[in-house]
């Protein structure tokens, strides 16, 4: 009976062999095909940016993509003085949204009435800046947020302290828990504040409307001012959507700025960060948007008016003089850079 069991007819053998061959054939074909496919690089399309078609100064975008929950939380934190050691100073103290996003004093006063070393930049449109602080030591807004909190001359606190205070506040705890799985932490606080600050865009300035095609948004003098702004080369540094904030420049390229007085540490500018000689006295070019509101000007806040700062610019940066009427026109132009926040002009 075993023979009978083992007996497999020739046709049966043949059919199995056929199936095997076919299968093997298919397998090999597939193998080959894949080999070939692997060889060919995949043609992937990557969109080309037509850079040249971009304007030198793009208008502020009307909207910005932010996480609303974080923005709401960040807004609360931004205005919360508990971020300072003695619960007196919040971000808004030096970066007051009602005062052009700054405190409108030469240098800020920190905790215990300590006078800070440097003028506070505006938080409006700060999301467009390529780095934060005058010396660009913070890569982004989140990195920047920790600075004042820990600065003994500013808020004089530390995250643990802040977290402890915030943890007692149930709404905060709830809000944090909702957004951040790991609850109230320093980097989460900074993240929320940063998200909020990113939302502080000020579109629809008259200049932006002009850029978008509304020729009547600017007066003739303002238009002329814009022309002169370009002609004199202000635009070389104050370009981009923020009219600045995308490069470092030496303060005193043509004329040495700092000979008039003793240099402070803040005066070293980017040198403090990179320790490179060519970075000495280099500061981040500030944004000119809402410039009318964010006086006084320059890192030391020494230029009280636009006229003052323009004087510095002609002398130190451009190495030329301009006629007063030219200066007035430019100032007029600069005043068209005030945008709106939440529909309200600054």
């Amino acid at each position: 009976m075993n023979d009978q069991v083992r007996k497999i007819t020739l046709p049966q053998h043949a059919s199995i062999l056929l199936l095997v061959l076919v299968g093997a054939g298919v397998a090999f074909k597939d193998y080959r095909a894949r080999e070939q496919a692997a060889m060919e690089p995949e043609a992937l399309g990557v969109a080309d940016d037509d850079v040249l078609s971009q304007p030198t100064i793009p208008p502020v975008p009307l909207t910005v993509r932010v996480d609303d929950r974080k923005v709401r939380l960040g807004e609360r934190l931004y205005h919360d003085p508990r971020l300072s050691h003695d619960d007196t100073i919040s971000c808004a103290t030096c970066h007051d949204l009602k005062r052009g996003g700054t405190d409108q004093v030469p240098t800020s006063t920190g905790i215990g009435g300590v006078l800070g070393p440097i003028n506070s930049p505006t938080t409006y449109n700060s999301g467009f800046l390529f780095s934060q602080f005058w010396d660009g030591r913070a890569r982004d807004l989140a990195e920047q947020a920790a600075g004042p909190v820990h600065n003994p001359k500013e808020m004089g606190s530390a995250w643990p302290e802040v977290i402890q205070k915030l943890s007692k506040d149930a709404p905060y705890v709830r809000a944090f828990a909702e957004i951040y799985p790991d609850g109230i932490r320093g980097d989460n606080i900074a993240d929320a504040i940063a998200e909020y600050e990113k939302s502080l865009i000020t579109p629809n300035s008259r200049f932006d409307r002009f850029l978008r095609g509304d020729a009547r948004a600017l007066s003739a003098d303002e238009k002329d001012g814009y022309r002169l702004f370009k002609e004199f080369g202000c635009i070389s540094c104050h370009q981009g959507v923020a009219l600045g904030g995308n490069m470092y420049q030496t303060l005193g390229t043509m004329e040495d700025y700092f000979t008039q007085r003793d240099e402070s540490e803040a005066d070293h500018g980017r040198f403090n960060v990179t320790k490179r000689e060519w970075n000495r006295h280099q500061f981040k070019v500030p944004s000119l948007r809402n410039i009318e509101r964010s006086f006084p000007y320059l890192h030391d806040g020494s230029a009280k008016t636009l006229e003052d700062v323009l004087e510095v610019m002609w002398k130190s940066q451009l190495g030329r003089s301009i006629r007063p009427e030219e200066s007035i026109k430019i100032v007029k132009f600069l005043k068209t850079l005030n945008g709106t926040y939440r529909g309200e002009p600054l």
Partner: protein
Amino acid sequence: MRSPIRILAIAAGTLCTLAFLLVKTKLDSGEEHRRHVNLLLELQKVDSSLNEELLEVRYAQLINYDPLVKNLRDLKAGAERLKALPGSFEEGSEGHSRMVEQVSELLRLLAQKEDLVERFKSENSTLRNSLSFFPVAASELAQVLDVSQRGLALEVQALLRDVLMYNLHSNEEILPPIQARIAMLSVRQRIHGQAAWTEEMRRVLNHGNTILEYKTRLDRITREALELPTRSLLRRIQSTYWEQSLRMVSLTNDYRLALYLFAIVLMATIAYSFLRLQNTTLALNEANLTLEKRVQERTEDLKQATNELTRQKDQLVLNSKELEQALRRETEATVALKESEMQLALAQEVSHTGNWVFKTATGGFSWSAELYRIYGLDPQPTPSKELLLRHVHPEDRPVVQQTVERALDERSAFETEHRIVRSDGQHRFVHARAQVLVDDSGRPSTMVGTVQDVTERKEMQTKLVHAERMASLGTLAGGVAHEINNPLSCVLSNLEFMSRGLCEVEDVAPPGWLAETRQVIGDSFKGAERVRRIVQDLRTFTRPSNKVGPVDMHQILDLAITMASSQIQHRAKLVRDYFDVPPVRGDAPRLGQVALNLLVNAAQAIPDGKATENEIRVVTRMDGAHRVVFEVRDTGCGIPPEIRRHLFEPFLTTKPVGKGTGLGLSVCHGIVTSLGGEITVESEVGKGSTFRVSIPVAGQAIDPARPTTTAAPGHLSQGGRPQEGPWRPAEVSSSAPSTSRVCSG
């Protein structure tokens, strides 16, 4: 069939291989690969864009630095993402380490590029401004220069030309002259510090210097930035990646192929197994059918065989039944036969009858078991007529022989009674019968005979005769005694009277006469007393009594002595050797009989006439605490050993025919043993004999230690103390004790 373990192992191995191959092929994560490839391409594009923009900025086509910022940022972010290598890069592999190295290199280059770009931006702005203002400044200066400073104006023109030329061509050679000119002009400017043209001149020189300085630097920076080998590095990264991914893809592909082939082989195996299974099923079905058919055939055969067997069985059953019955019948017959044989044997045993059969034809002689027993023979010796005759008592033999001979001759029956002597010497009485049987033709074929041991009957007969005699004697004696009593009483009372009368005539009687008369009366008394005693004893003696009670041995012995005195008187002295003995358990007349018998025997053992030389001693003593012994010793002729053996047997007598019946000692034996006692004898021929009788003390049960069997009379007890030395003299008394009347005077 392979063992289950092997199968399990194979299955497990197959599954593992499949799983392994599947996993290996899954390693091809297309998504990851695509993303990485995308990223690499994008980085290259971004890098290119950045370079483009730098040039555009340089050519004043692009003033907005935002794109530069964005591209740099994207490059850096992308490079960071490159660090996350796809799974195809295994840790420790060459590809992996190369990739890591290249990515770090890229990040380093990008940092450098960033720095360069920052510098570029700053310098570019300044240079651009200066370039655009320099001609203006020069023209402003020219306006304030008057014609007297024509030389100066020309210098300034030349400067303008040179600087712009330098800006255009970056010719190193013209740099020194320009610088020289600037130097010269600045000197001039300082000298003429108050001139109207000094400020303008200063500005011109400032911007000129700036241009020269910044141009050189910016060119270098630009070149450096553009020449950073980021693109080639990215390409290398890409090729590294490609290589690796290709390798991975290829490997995966190989695994996939292996998987396919494995699967195909597996399928083929399954197909074969399936075919085998089919075949097996078919074969099984076929086998099943064959089996069924065969089973059916077998069943048929078996049925037939079974029927046949059943038939045979039935037959056998019948046969066996018949056999059984036959066997049963035979058994019954055998049993019956055995039964009857047993009964016969029993009958013979009980009746002490043996039988013999003599076949005249064969001369065969067969005896029954009882016959052997009667003769005291082992059932071995071949029975024969001679044997029979040999055992006949010598005295009876002639008669018997004669009878038997005659019977044999005449082929007739016979009947005899004779004594036989057993092989153990015992004498028995037998009653023999024989008969001749004839066969069908009338000729004698068989002789059958019986021999019955009638000893007991004979004994009984003799005892009966004896008893009858004794009874008649007793009756006679009783009558005589009674007759005698009356006159005797008269005599005695008369004597009494006379004795009393003597006392009265004491005074007057002559002295000698009184004494003599008293003596005479006394003697008469004695004589009369004696007669009375004799009469009394006679009555006692003959009185049948079965009463067993305490009996005074001495009394009985004295009486027996008295009765035997006539026999003893002339033969021997009688000596009494009496110790104190308690009463014995016995029957007084019977015991008296025994004592009398012994005494008479003793007397008769001694020849007449020599009374003074012979002695008969009667002794009583204790044997232990419970037995009383009395002995009768004589100095007679003694008893020879061969007779001693059969002493207590009935019919043994040494007395001449007519004198004794030979019954005495056997009777004594019977009486003594029935009282639980023993009778024994010691004797020496020529010296004398001692007969000893021991009787239990009254109040004692029959002592079981001492066999008191009423066995065949041939049983002799050889007990008793051996005779000790010669007779010891004892008190000699002449006659039985008598009461003598003593006159109290």
